[in-house]
């Protein structure tokens, strides 16, 4: 009898250690989660979570298209999601394993259909806008009190940029973000797929590029927060994180975010599962965990991005749900545009143009 008890203890510890060995691999954007959620997921499910980060869609896409990325859950943005679905990089999500999907916000689900028409491959994690982060005092010092901090003229009018260059301007290193903004500033359709229209952005951007200190898609958070630059054209939540870091450091730096009045790009980062995910079951558990209202709220409260989870809204901090920079007003929401992926030929034109703008050749 004693022997069997010993045996069953041994068996159960063995089972437990096997369960511990189960692993889920998640590849998400940098600075994009409340890290205590990672521990919480491991505690709740007993699954080991390997959490890696990237800072550009391009890097993610290259890994996905090379195949065998080894990740169970990845977080591409809209146009990239659409192209990767076409390339056959994702598997359909088994909705029966995602009971928390009822928490999702239909408004965002509808907008996401532009990229995932049947809503089969992706569920939204966060969404936001691309706009202007400014160090309010420095910009006013340089441009005067009526500086257009909520207009694209701030960064696309060479006269302004010449003056701002002295205190430092960073741009996202992502043509798919900057070119639509330039087209919006010119009064063209930001989602244009016409090479001739897109090329109109070139002289505009060439004129201001010398005044841009750096094109980079993540360094501006720190640079804004510690006051070493005064303007960044970047993602809403990143800039709001910079605002908060500056406030915490109490270094006298005051950061503000504005979606440009000319219209702002609205983007969606969504959970999707690579077609060759090693552990899809665990991946679904992770996605479901993140769609829990509590967890989605914790993530948004931490990263200052709006999420696609309606049920979480009641649980959001007042400075998140009440901040129009994060959850835009009805009116701003109408002013937001979305973009479509470029086909390979147009993509080459765009990348080439981008290199030319950045390096002058």
């Amino acid at each position, binding site marked *: 009898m004693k022997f069997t008890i010993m045996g069953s203890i041994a068996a159960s510890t063995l089972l437990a250690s096997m369960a511990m060995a189960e692993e889920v691999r998640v590849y998400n954007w940098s600075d994009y989660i409340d890290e205590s959620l990672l521990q919480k997921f491991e505690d709740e499910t007993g699954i080991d979570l390997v959490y890696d980060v990237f800072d550009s869609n391009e890097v993610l*896409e*290259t890994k996905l298209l090379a*195949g065998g990325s080894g990740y169970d859950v990845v977080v591409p943005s809209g146009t990239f999601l659409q192209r990767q679905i*076409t390339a056959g990089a994702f598997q359909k999500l088994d909705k029966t394993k995602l009971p928390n999907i009822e928490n999702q916000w239909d408004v965002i689900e509808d907008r996401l259909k532009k990229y995932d028409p049947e809503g089969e491959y992706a569920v939204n994690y966060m969404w936001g806008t691309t706009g202007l982060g400014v160090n309010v005092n420095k910009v006013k010092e340089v441009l005067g009190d009526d500086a257009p901090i909520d207009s694209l003229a701030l960064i696309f009018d060479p006269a302004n940029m010449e003056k701002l260059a002295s205190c430092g301007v960073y741009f996202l290193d992502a043509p798919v973000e900057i070119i639509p903004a330039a087209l919006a500033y010119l009064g063209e359709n930001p989602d244009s797929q016409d090479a001739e229209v897109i090329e109109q952005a070139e002289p505009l951007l060439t004129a201001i590029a010398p005044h841009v*200190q750096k094109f980079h898609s993540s360094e501006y958070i720190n640079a804004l927060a*510690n006051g*070493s630059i005064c303007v960044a054209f970047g993602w809403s939540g990143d800039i709001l994180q910079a605002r908060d870091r500056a406030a915490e450091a109490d270094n006298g730096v005051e950061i503000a975010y504005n979606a440009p009045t000319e219209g702002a790009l609205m983007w969606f980062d969504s959970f999707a599962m690579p077609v060759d995910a090693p552990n899809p079951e665990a991946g679904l558990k992770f996605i479901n965990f993140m769609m829990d209202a509590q967890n989605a709220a914790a993530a948004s409260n931490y990263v200052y991005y709006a999420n696609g989870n309606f049920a979480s809204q009641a649980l959001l901090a007042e400075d998140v749900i009440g901040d129009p920079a994060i959850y835009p007003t009805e009116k701003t929401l109408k002013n937001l545009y979305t973009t479509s992926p470029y086909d390979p030929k147009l993509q080459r034109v765009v*990348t080439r143009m981008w290199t030319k703008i950045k*390096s002058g*050749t």
Partner: protein
Amino acid sequence: MRRFALIAVPYLWLLFLFLVPFLIVFKISLSDLALAIPPYAPTFKDGIAEMLRQFDFENFVFLTVDDLYWKAYLSSLQIAFFSTLITLMVGYPMAYGMARAPEEWRATLMMLVILPFWTSFLIRVYAWIGILSNDGFLNQLLMWIGLINEPLTILNTNIAVYIGIVYTYLPFMILPIYAALDRLDESLNEAAEDLGCSRMQAFWLVTIPLSKNGIIAGCFLVFIPALGEFVIPSLLGGSGTLMIGKILFEEFFNNRDWPVASAVAVVLLLILIIPIVLFQRNQQRQAEAEQ
């Protein structure tokens, strides 16, 4: 048989670590962009005959159509050349100092040269961001001394790239030169001075020529990796820094065009073959001379 085995080892090495990867890259450079996994066509799945039929040199032709590529190659050659020159000018006196240092010091000095390798290359390059940025250590120091009033913009310029390359590759320059100088017979210099040379003349006429092999080896060890450098220009360089390593990255990651990226890599390799062959020949001649 034994002789055959001895020859076979380096050739197998070359085959697996150089020729096979090169052929894979070359194969991709002959294919076309596709929206699939992997993102090019044709692949082996289409069958060898079909694959060969679809191959063409379109991507290589494309590289000649757009002036971006040759400008990037030229600019890389220029940056690699001048940073090699600067590394030589900095590294030679250091190697000379080491070789002339008292015997008991040399091991320590050698250790100091190698020590930076104990830290990750990436972290060391990152550290330079902290040193060179507008509110970095260097600018703070210079302003504190009173040499400058406004911070110098060094980070995100080509100057920062030169600093990064020289710093990173300095040990590769010092070590072969030190090895050459260490073996140098001091009495040769004394003989030159006895025969009427000044110390300076003796240095130019005796020391430099006798350390030539070390200089050549050091220069190639710096020049070859510097030419394809990606990390240093992308972390320290600005948007105006045009280097082929960055172009390669863009072709892969921004255009997702593996075939063109592979063509860029093949051409880079062809450019590198000239200095690599020269280097090999120099090494061989040296080995023969020693026998």
